[in-house]
């Protein structure tokens, strides 16, 4: 197998009586866009939380870039380039769009107390460069004219764009996107899809995309991992999975999310 940047092995995690993830394993190859699909409650968001380090699994291992990161706090994983977005937009509401981006860049001179107080010249110069860089990113995402607006005042779709551009500002190596297209107009879905493909091609960012919209998956993802009832059910291209009986039973054939999820 090619160079896998992420590997989860035998993950188990229970919330009280609910076995949200039940012995799930899969791997993600570097430089790809992979979809993580499955019916509601399959454990996809929980898996994103385990990979990013928000939750600690009861059992199993998370390997990122060849290193075991299972016991690593989430912020340290993020420092290594393993980043995620949330299923619902979580912008910094009372900060401007531009500030939302400025916050997330790591390694700024004024992030320590000493630096903040005594290296003002340096962080001021750095901030100026970061503002220019953030403006470029915002311009690509069509948010440039909203840069000085409070993020909390934006529409749902615009907040989605803020989430993605903020993640880009953080220079991810692997980006986990939890339903980035949820509640977004069809036109914007198309744009978000294009952005993801561009980021993948131009910056080499690896993507794992939790997504219910199979059209999107078909268009931008080279590989699909299917989860159901906390387990990895199958993986392959969408075309391969379309003829997989287990997948059809659990997800694809059912069509309605409600029926399958219940």
């Amino acid at each position: 197998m090619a160079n896998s940047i992420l590997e989860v092995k035998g993950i188990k995690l229970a919330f009280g009586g609910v076995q949200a993830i039940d012995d799930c394993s899969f791997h993600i190859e570097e430089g790809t866009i992979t979809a993580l699909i499955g019916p509601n409650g399959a454990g996809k968001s929980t898996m994103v939380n385990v990979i990013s380090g928000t939750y600690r699994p009861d059992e199993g291992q998370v390997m990122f870039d060849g290193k075991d990161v299972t016991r690593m706090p989430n912020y340290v994983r993020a420092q290594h380039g393993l980043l995620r977005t949330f299923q619902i937009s979580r912008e910094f509401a009372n900060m401007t769009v531009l500030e939302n981006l400025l916050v997330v860049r790591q390694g700024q001179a004024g992030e320590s107390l000493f630096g903040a107080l005594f290296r003002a010249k340096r962080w001021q110069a750095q901030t100026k460069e970061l503002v220019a860089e953030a403006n470029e990113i915002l311009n690509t995402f069509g948010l440039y004219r909203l840069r000085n607006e409070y993020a909390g005042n934006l529409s749902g779709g615009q907040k989605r764009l803020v989430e993605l551009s903020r993640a880009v500002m953080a220079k991810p190596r692997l980006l986990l996107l939890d339903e980035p297209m949820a509640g977004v107009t069809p036109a914007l879905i198309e744009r978000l899809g294009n952005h993801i493909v561009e980021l993948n091609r131009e910056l080499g960012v690896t993507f794992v995309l939790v997504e219910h919209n199979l059209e999107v998956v078909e268009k931008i993802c080279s590989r699909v991992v299917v989860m159901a009832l906390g387990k990895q059910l199958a993986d392959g291209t969408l075309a391969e999975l379309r003829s997989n009986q287990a997948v059809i039973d659990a997800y694809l054939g059912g069509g309605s999310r409600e029926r399958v999820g219940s």
Partner: protein
Amino acid sequence: MSLILGYVATLLVTFFTYNIFVIGLNIQFGYTGILNFTVITFMAFGAYFYAVFVMPHADNASQVFYILGLHWPWPLAMLAGIVASGALGYLIGLIALKRLRSDYLAIVTLATGTLVYGLFGNNNKLFDGWSGLFNVNQPFQSVATNHPNEFSWIFVIFSGLIMLVVWLFANRLYASPLGRSMRAIREDQDVVDSFGKNSFKIRMLAMVIGSVIVGIGGVLTIQYIGALSPAGWTTGETFVVWAALLVGGRANNLGAILGSLLVAVIFNEATRYIPQVPSHPNLIPNLRNVIIGSLVILSIWFRPQGVLPEKKASFLEVPLVDKYAQGFPGEEPDSALSPAGSEA
């Protein structure tokens, strides 16, 4: 004439020290979203520890008891008081910031405040119990004893300079990347973590910085008056600091200053000088709380962000050519933020 001058000096010192308290709380709550409901305990820590470091050994014959009594020079004792206050902040942070969300932290601070109050009051070996400490050595001592009025004005300058340093510090912190991370934590702590910042560490830093600043105000308070007893740092005093911040405007240091002028000086201090009604000795203090309480309610009702709300950040930048100046297909038509130009 000299009476009025002394009074004005006292008001100014009060104003300056309250500015310091409110800026300290602003860094904790306004910047970082930390609910510290026992601000005044940190003031007491600063004041008491300054006192026991600067005063000579307790003289048992006088029936005044306190710990230490090291008779250090006042600048060193001042440092000790500030460190003590910061250490208390660190301790509370260790208990409450690691795992607990902000609402639990609020409860932990309240509990700590009550605990410390009871402990310091009931135990007369620590800081002389309910009667408190007096004859605390002051800076510029010989002036203070011989020329009380001159001392007041020297102290106005002294406390004013310290306030200025605190003010400059707080504003630089606000504008810095560290301050920006603090405000992001106020908005959503988990997201800050998931972008590679140790939010626990940053919240701890804000907690300790705020405690240190409030401690500085506490040292100044006891240096000016030369005495402090538990009656001077009741829960009501914490309420005054909070009221000043909420009315003035959180996350805006100018708002903090305006708030402490309005609440701490004009409403709080000035009402102390209204003549007492002999038949109702508690009328004035109660009235004062009612007035400050109403002020908070009115301000939350009409100006929820305070009189001077947080300023929107703006940056020097080279303008770009907007790629989407004509609007984009994905734009929600009902968006309140649609640019005027693309509508036409």
